């Protein structure tokens, strides 16, 4: 039944204009909120770059921290770069395989009470203040070995990184469609092979992102390192001895009155920030490349 044209309600109501206005106002408000969230990030990044860039020169990356009477631009953080590398390197080795294995267990095998307990543990550790992880390692490993050490710091950092890797990896493993697992199982593949050859490669770039997130957390860690590695003004390459770290240098020099040391602290902050940024970008590039190859 056709309705006569005259009977139709007009499409152009007076309402649409005010709706359009409300829509615009609300959109503008949301945009403003999003922009506000960017402000701290931009301010921090600018501050660190502006204050830190003057500290950077070849000595900064190759020399040890300056003595009190050394002229500006003669000292550096070489020992801290090595120390952070050692501490984070070992922490990655300790936490990433364990974290991924835990995630695989939770996502692919974990049923019932054990999985619940493991997940609860990971969540709790994720929310644990890092100084507590440092304190526990200090009270145990450092006390027993009678020495602050890089491996004690690695252990404390890995306790903090493990739940990040676990939870992030579990999330991305869960995003792998069940249909892919079933498709592989239906080919007569054992479950472990389905996990190793199908599920993990499919989630690969997401796992990498989770690992980078954990590494970033580890790189920025200070309190746990302070209580376990202590810091060191000299070059140390032994895991058993007190060790310098970039974050500890920032922490101690930022509190000193000498402009030379404060400048070094800014330089160290810039180095740390750039490292995290480069790692994040690298992880993004890898995952985007992967997705482009597949899509």
């Amino acid at each position, binding site marked *: 039944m056709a309705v006569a044209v005259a009977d139709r309600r007009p499409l152009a109501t007076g309402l649409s204009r005010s709706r359009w206005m409300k829509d615009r106002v609300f959109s503008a408000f949301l945009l403003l909120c999003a922009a506000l969230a960017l402000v701290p990030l931009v301010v921090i990044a600018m501050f660190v770059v502006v204050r830190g860039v003057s500290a950077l020169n070849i000595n900064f990356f190759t020399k040890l921290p300056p003595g009190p009477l050394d002229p500006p631009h003669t000292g550096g953080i070489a020992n801290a770069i090595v120390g952070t590398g050692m501490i984070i390197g070992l922490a990655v080795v300790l936490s990433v395989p364990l974290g991924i294995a835990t995630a695989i267990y939770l996502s692919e095998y974990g049923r019932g009470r054990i999985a619940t307990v493991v997940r609860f543990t990971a969540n709790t550790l994720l929310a644990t203040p890092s100084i507590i992880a440092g304190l526990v390692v200090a009270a145990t490993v450092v006390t027993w070995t009678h020495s602050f050490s890089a491996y004690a710091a690695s252990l404390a950092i890995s306790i903090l990184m493990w739940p990040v890797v676990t939870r992030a990896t579990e999330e991305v493993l869960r995003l792998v*469609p069940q249909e892919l*697992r079933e*498709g592989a199982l239906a*080919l*007569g*593949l054992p479950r472990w092979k389905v996990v190793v*050859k199908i599920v993990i490669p499919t989630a690969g770039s997401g796992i990498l992102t989770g690992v980078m997130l954990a590494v970033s957390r580890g790189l920025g860690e200070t309190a746990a390192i302070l209580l376990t590695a202590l810091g060191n003004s000299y070059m140390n390459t032994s895991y058993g001895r007190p060790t310098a770290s970039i974050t500890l240098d920032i922490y101690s020099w930022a509190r000193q009155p000498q402009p030379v040391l404060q400048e070094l602290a800014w330089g160290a902050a810039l180095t740390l920030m750039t490292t995290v940024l480069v790692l994040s970008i690298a992880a993004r590039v890898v995952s985007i490349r992967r997705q482009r190859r597949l899509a």
Partner: protein
Amino acid sequence: MTSLEVRQLDAWFGKAKVLKSIDVVAADRAVTAIIGPSGCGKSTLLRCMNRMHEEVRGARAEGEVLFGGQDVYAPDADPVEVRRQIGMVFQRPNPFPTMSVFDNAVAGLKLAGRFPKAELHDRAEKALRAAGLWEEVKDRLQQPGGRLSGGQQQRLCIARALAVEPQILLMDEPASALDPVSTLRIEELIAELKRDYTVIIVTHNMQQAARVSDSTLFMLYGEVVEFATTQKVFTNPEDRRTEDYVTGRFG
């Protein structure tokens, strides 16, 4: 003999019993269709035949599924081996997204390990030809499987299932996510496959069941209502409910 015989099969999801004393025989080198309304248990029955049902949390099955005289549910039967010999194609095409067309086709052989590399290409070609896909993909074997069209992806999945040389092929609504042209291709393919395989297909589409199958099983509420030749089920069913369903009075 590679017929498949289901005897007194019960299945559960948790406490809910979804299959009740199913008996059915899928003849060798023939197509058996399983039809019924949504939730009647037809997919579950199919998934019980190669022990995929138990992969769902809380799901279990009891009874016998005889495959060449051996019970798929025997205590010492290995589900992995069962699935190797009883292949499956799913409702939605599920090629492995990280793999090329070629690797998808021979995934079952490659991942099971110890398969001679030199033979992989022959097996891939054979499987892709059997799935009627070879001519379309032979020049882009190294492209990701996910870049094919939906219908091609489904035939890739059929090729993947055939490459491990199963004796029986289970198909769970293999064309329901596809357009009519792709559906026709799959149906033609099924007609060819039954020369070499025992095919069991679950379908929502009664015309499809009538077109492709030799025998038809009609299920309702987890029970077998009628199992007979497709001809009989669609033209002269014994049971009133079968007649109502195939004539479109419900379902």
